[in-house]
């Protein structure tokens, strides 16, 4: 005797064609099929339809793959250099460490906030902050802020100035490497030639 709603069983019959049934659903469907000749007929018709659709497929020409491959640009994709970012980062790390040591040596036992690496970072931060302010429309304040930031950098130790320059150069290098596009394969040829006509 049927125990499952007819609509659900019909859904199972369709999904069975696609191999989408769970083991439990398949078991229950088998049970329902045992009880209903009508369902068995429905299943046979669906399976026959599936088979007919499969039989109506056309063969692919034997040289198709070769045609596609010979059509591709002769230059392969440039290999991705997955570790390309490591060198700039390592360079920056060494640079920062070197500047820290240098700042400590030139600044004596105590490192002032306005000198050495900390000073350089603070100055860069000041520049960025001033730039953001300029972007928000607070022109008067930002110009003043920029001037103060530059004064701070220029008045600081030579190490701070060098630090700012190197940090900015390093950031630019990273930006360049990040944005650089890989070379694309050669441009498409005329489609008529591509199709071998």
């Amino acid at each position, binding site marked *: 005797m049927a125990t499952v709603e007819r609509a659900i069983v019909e859904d199972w019959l369709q999904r069975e064609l696609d191999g989408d049934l769970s083991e439990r659903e398949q078991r229950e469907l088998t049970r329902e099929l045992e009880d209903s000749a009508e369902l068995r007929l429905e299943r046979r018709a669906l399976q026959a339809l599936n088979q007919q659709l499969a039989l109506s497929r056309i063969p692919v020409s034997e040289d198709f*793959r070769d045609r596609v491959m010979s059509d591709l640009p002769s230059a392969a*994709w440039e*290999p991705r250099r997955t570790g390309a970012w490591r060198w700039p980062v390592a360079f920056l790390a060494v640079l920062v460490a070197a500047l820290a040591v240098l700042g400590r040596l030139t600044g004596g036992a105590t490192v002032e906030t306005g000198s050495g690496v900390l000073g350089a970072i603070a100055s860069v931060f000041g520049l960025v902050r001033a730039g953001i302010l300029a972007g928000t429309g607070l022109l008067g304040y930002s110009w003043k802020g920029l001037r103060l930031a530059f004064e701070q950098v220029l008045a600081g130790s030579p190490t701070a100035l060098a630090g700012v320059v190197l940090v900015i150069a390093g950031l630019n290098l990273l930006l360049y490497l990040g944005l650089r596009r890989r070379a694309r394969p050669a441009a498409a040829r005329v489609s008529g030639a591509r199709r071998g006509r």
Partner: protein
Amino acid sequence: MNDEQLVAAVLAGRQDDFGELVRRYQGRLVNYLFRIVHNTEEAHDLAQEVFFKVYLALDSFDPRYRFSTWLFRVAQNAAIDFLRKRRLKVVSINRLDGETGEPQEWELPSPDRGPYGDLRNTERGGAIEGAIEELPWEYRELILMRHYGELSYDDIASLKEMPLGTVKNKLFRGRQMLKQKLSDYLTD
């Protein structure tokens, strides 16, 4: 290697691995396109063009998605463009032939009778083709994707940006329509 790994390998410079992707999808793609353009040679040409486009755009493939979905999306767009161009061509020829200058019906060229036509020359093959043709497009495209493109429910849902339930409903409804149209051939 799965499809996404093959794509990564091609991008790493191993062009031959693209051949494996072609091998995996050529049958599905050619058959899917054939059911839309109704011409074996044009289906092959279009499939070749699709693989070429896909290769050139390989770096824009997002590996979070399935390669098959992306490939068939490109194929679907290519087929639509192709049909649009062909319709324009047919209309312009009709208008040249017409004496009245009245707009003529937009007839697509009849299916070819090329070297692969034997299968379809049988009564049953013709009936299947006719039954699929008569389906409303919303059902027909899902039937083509599932039975000729061999895409999964999930792939179709992703490709058509439809809920999974809608995909199943439309696909099942399309099959029921086909079953009714082909009832004479399915009771052997």
